[in-house]
């Protein structure tokens, strides 16, 4: 008993000593390099613009507002990519489970290829190879009201109207609609198609976890194959798939930090810029960590509530 207490006391003493040494060194280093140690820098003028922002942002706004815009960009991109990845992933997962040999092999090929190429390469590919050679605004490619040019992807959106290029009103750019910058589009595409490969495998594992007897019993009761899938297989498969699905969404949110490589103004990129401008390393990295950790914990807590409250989690 005393040995256990002594061991733990020793461990805590070592950790405390390490922290103390780190703090001591940090204090000395920070002073020697004239790095700010308070959060006051947050209210200084940012001086840089963002290529895409959910809230109005100008270079005259503060660093704090830039961070807020970055967080919102991270959240919006992650949410959009999560929805799209689920749609694409489920489609590929069903194709993988298809009885058709060719379709199933094609889906397997997709999964194996996309999972085994680093996400960064996906992003660079979308950004540089597919989105850079886009035309000027006056030669926008258009499809069903959606316009695509080198300034981004324009969607019709309630309140913003239909996107249109009208040289009489603005000879240089498309007006109206919701604009997605090429950086944001590349990030969303890359995240979607990369994560879809994982989601397809999660769906497949979920469906295969449902015992064979279930579909045989449904068939014996006279349910059609479509009914069997919708009423018997999928509810049970989704129950198995929900926890890994949520951790995939979390991974996607963390992966959206790769935006820093293609210059999309997400939390990571904005805080990297702030770090370079102010040198306030401890504060910016601390804020980043707190936000990402908070986001994961919030999502996990939410998932636990869903599992507890809905009949999805029922035993």
């Amino acid at each position, binding site marked *: 008993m005393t040995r*256990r207490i002594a*061991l*733990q006391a020793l461990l*805590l003493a070592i950790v405390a000593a390490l922290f103390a040494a780190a703090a001591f060194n940090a204090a000395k280093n920070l002073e020697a390099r004239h790095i700010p140690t308070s959060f006051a820098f947050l209210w200084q003028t940012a001086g840089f613009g963002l290529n895409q922002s959910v809230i109005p942002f100008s270079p005259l706004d503060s660093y704090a507002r830039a961070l807020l815009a970055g967080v919102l960009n991270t959240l919006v991109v992650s949410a959009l990519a999560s929805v799209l990845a689920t749609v694409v992933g489920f489609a590929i997962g069903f194709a993988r489970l298809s009885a058709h040999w060719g379709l199933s092999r094609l889906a397997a090929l997709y999964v194996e290829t996309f999972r085994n190429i680093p996400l960064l390469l996906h992003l660079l590919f979308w950004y540089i190879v597919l989105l850079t050679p886009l035309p000027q605004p006056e030669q926008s490619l258009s499809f069903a009201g959606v316009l695509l040019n080198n300034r981004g992807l324009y969607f019709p959106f309630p309140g913003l109207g239909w996107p249109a290029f009208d040289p009489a009103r603005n000879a240089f750019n498309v007006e109206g609609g919701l604009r997605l910058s090429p950086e944001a589009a590349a990030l969303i595409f890359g995240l979607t198609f990369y994560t879809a490969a994982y989601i397809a495998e999660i769906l497949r594992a979920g469906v295969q976890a449902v015992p064979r007897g279930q579909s045989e019993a449904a068939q014996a009761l006279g349910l059609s194959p479509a009914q069997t899938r919708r009423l018997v297989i999928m509810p049970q498969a989704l129950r198995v798939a929900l926890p890994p699905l949520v951790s995939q969404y979390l991974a996607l949110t963390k992966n959206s*930090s790769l935006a820093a490589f293609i210059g999309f103004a997400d939390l990571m990129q904005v805080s990297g810029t702030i770090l370079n401008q102010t040198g306030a390393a401890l504060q910016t*990295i601390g804020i980043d960590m707190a936000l990402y950790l908070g986001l994961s914990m919030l999502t996990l807590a939410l998932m636990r509530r869903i599992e507890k409250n809905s009949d999805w989690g029922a035993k």
Partner: protein
Amino acid sequence: MTDFLRADFLPPQPPPPMRAPGWRAKLFGDARATAITLALLVLAALVLPPAIRYLFIDAIWSAPDGAACRAPGAGACWAYIAAKSPFFFYGAYPPALYWRVNLTFALAAALIVWLLHPKIPRKGLALAGFFLGLPVVGFILLHGAPALGLSVVGTNLWGGALVSLIMALAGMAVALPGGVALALGRRSELPALRWLSIATIEFVRGAPLIAVLFMANVLLPLFLPPDWAPDRLLRPMAGIALFASAYMAEVVRGGLAAVPRGQGEAAAALGLSRWQSLKLIVLPQALGAVVPGIVNNFVALFKDTTLVAIVGLFDFLHAIDVARLDPVWAGPTIALTGYVFAALFYLTFCLAMSRYAGGLEKRLAAAKR
């Protein structure tokens, strides 16, 4: 009352066919299958010919500079890959000393085959070689040791696949023992140790790798005495090792949970000390059960090494991404050629590892039955 009961018997049906359906039945069995097959054939007809033309027929296989690749209608510029491959694989490492890099990775490959191939005996020796011998020998070979007559090559000259593989190997060599230590700490009876382990694991797993790399690159020098200044390669390496250890800890935890309690109790009843029981009874079973998970973790680690570019290192992908700007070669097809080559490189390594994990999973499942 008995309306729903059949009064007359149905004639017996013929027995189901014994043979599995042939390819014709699989692909053209009914209208739906035929429609899918035709759609796939149309897709292949649309995608494959231009792809083959671009990658092989119209491709430029040898050229002194980018002029031929810039011509209209030219396909992939493989000549560029050939010309730049020393940079892609070795960075700015002195060409006369490439043998040192090759020798290091040949050694690593031999040890990995020894570790992973089920038929080669004496795994303990291989383990010691990989986790203790290789880091020392590799460092001496790559960095150089004047005392042994090997001239010093500074890490600022290292780049390309050399850096990617070093990061991955160092990450593996730290992550496995680190992950085991964190996983054991997590289920320790000592609350202080347990909470420290949980805090480390959850903190690292909650953050993106880029944030951890930033932290290692910027904060590590702040927390150390000013004259220690860790090497520019060592800082991201520490970040990757920490990150991989936390994820490995969760895999190992799954393995530890799969070992029945009775195993440890039986070991204790036989008079084994806790350390002996851990080393001889619990850990071999726990790790054996999760080898596929461990290898999948290594795949993720290898893909994650591409992110070290954020702190200014020239790993394989970053070297390719930078080389496309070289004015001698720059042209419309250069970026895509480079990315296709990078994709092949990562696919080869990751697929080999995934295939091994998949095969092992099947063997383990068969052994359990």
